[in-house]
């Protein structure tokens, strides 16, 4: 893919949960270039998570076009969107990111179970999927034998978020979406987490969409997008109608 082609491209995207219900996301244009680190911020309930759902192809726009990595996601069927997400997008949630009954390494390897593309990338990079998982965990300073052995439910929140980051990054997806991943961390740990995440994203030229309501993080990103400015639906209305 040419470097100049935008990773994300929205034009006149409107979304509502049901045909008759009020529009919660209405974005005229949004473009994100390759390897860009975007800081998307806005108050809770402003529709940010809905936008992430659109980008991930969990929901599709009612109007307008939404292209991710050049693909018209809105035009794809449900199964194709799921496959597209598995192949190209890594996710980090706010908290409770991990499957409690899987080990640290199994959690990290999970996306490779659903995507042949990411499995082959991971194998290429690390020899085996598991080795690549350990390598990523090592980069995120999470590869102590002690940490790897522990049940994921025994890890601290900061450690859990790093495991989630490794899972989002394994198999080199082009796009990583992080939905308030640091909100449960204190300032020091937040900073360390961001350092590690940036380093890994830079290595594979991964595009990062980082969502937070904490504007103090903004200076560390390439670009800041205040969600209230791109969403033409006023926040309170969104908050009222958000499910």
């Amino acid at each position, binding site marked *: 893919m040419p470097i100049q082609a935008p990773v994300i491209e929205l034009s006149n995207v409107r979304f509502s949960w049901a045909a008759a219900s009020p529009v919660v996301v209405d974005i005229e244009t949004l473009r994100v270039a390759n390897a860009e680190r975007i800081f998307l911020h806005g108050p809770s309930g402003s529709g940010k998570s809905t936008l992430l759902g659109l980008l991930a192809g969990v929901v599709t726009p009612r109007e307008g076009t939404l292209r991710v990595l050049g693909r018209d996601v809105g035009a794809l069927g449900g199964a194709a969107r799921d496959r597209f997400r598995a192949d190209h997008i890594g996710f980090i949630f706010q908290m409770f990111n991990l499957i409690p*009954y899987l080990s640290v390494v199994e959690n990290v390897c999970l996306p490779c179970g659903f995507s042949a593309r990411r499995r082959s990338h991971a194998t290429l990079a690390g020899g085996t999927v598991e080795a690549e998982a350990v390598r990523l965990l090592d980069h995120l300073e999470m590869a102590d034998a002690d940490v790897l052995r522990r049940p994921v439910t025994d890890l601290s929140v900061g450690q859990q978020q790093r495991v989630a980051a490794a899972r989002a990054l394994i198999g080199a997806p082009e796009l990583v979406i992080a939905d308030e991943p640091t909100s449960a961390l204190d300032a020091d740990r937040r900073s360390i987490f961001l350092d590690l995440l940036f380093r890994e994203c830079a290595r594979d030229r991964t595009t990062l969409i980082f969502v937070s309501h904490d504007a103090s993080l903004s200076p560390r990103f390439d670009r800041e997008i205040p969600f209230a400015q791109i969403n033409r639906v006023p926040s309170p209305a969104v908050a009222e109608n958000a499910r």
Partner: protein
Amino acid sequence: MSQPVILALAVKSLRNRKFTAALTVLSIALAVLLLLGVERIRHESRESFAATISGTDLIVGARSSPVHLLLYSVFHIGNATNNLRWDSYRAIAAQPEVAWTIPLSLGDSHRGYRVLATTPDYFDHFRFARDRRLVLAQGKGFGDERDAILGADVADALKYRPGDPIVIAHGAGDVSFSLHEHHPFKVAGILARTGTPVDRTVHVSLAGLDAVHENTDQGGAADPLAAVVRGDRHAGAMLASTPRAITAFLVGLKSRSSALSMQRRVNEFSAEPLSAVLPGVALQEVWEITGAVEKTLFAVSGLVVIVGLAGMLVALLTSLSERRREMAILRSVGARPVHVFALILGEAAFLTAAGIILGVAALYIGLLAGQPWLESRLGLFIALSWPSVYEVGLIVVVAAAGLLIGLIPAYRIYRYSLADGMTLRI
């Protein structure tokens, strides 16, 4: 591609909930054990009953119900209410259609085992389990009138060997005060195991039994009338030792096709009221009697299976709400709603399969362990055979029911995951 992942996830998720999963598996296993156990014992007891007598066309005794006659003459369950006269027996045995007859005289016992007085014809003509004949494991057949031939269980339990003396007692009880001590028998032979009531029977010759009772008379023990009043089953033999009376007799016909006409002739026998039964027909009547009980047992075990599977449904459904987050995580890493569906269905399938395997294993272990007990206490020999087609059918029904029940939570989580997408609401 992702099927192995889903399967591995299902197994690991169950392992994470070991306790509930183990309880669910246990309840399904017990239900399967009960269902198959009831069916196995029902089937085997029928087989075993049906195998007790073979090749006999008619059983003739004093007038009574067919089931009663069959039970006391062949299975040694209950007692005859009346004997039949020896000359009646001879008259019927002399009919041209009759190929052979075996006279049977019951009523005495030896240490709790029934004594059957008969003739050497018994060992020539009696057949069980599809035309198998009685075979001596040790010793020899009837020589003189003091010889006794023991069934395998009698010899095993009482540790008899050929040559040992035995004393038979009046009546069928374990303890009798009327021992025929002055007329001991001698163990001549021991029969090979048959898995039928023959194993628990002491066989003596009719002549020997008569000698016992004649001796009793000489001992001045009995006024014949008093014996009748006491319900003495050898009363007939004592009143008129020649011709004697017997309890019943088995008839083999030259041609099977004359069985019905022969039966009618016996039932209309003018000299005394007699009954003739076709063993198969009488067995059928026994099944009709036991059928209701069997159906009830089957229904109860069927309900237990439903309860076991309902337990699984409850366990899966209650886990769902706390697992919505897990499903959202799986969706975020690329799992499709159908994978989420398959994960829960896979768990149900795994629980059901584990329950069935454990239940079947428990059945065989139980049969193996219970075999000697069932055989010695109930005379029920249960062969350790592979599951029958019917049993496999039952297993398939349980498995299908398990999957069907698994569809309920699977569909719910499928709907959740469609609606939730990746929004992680706690």
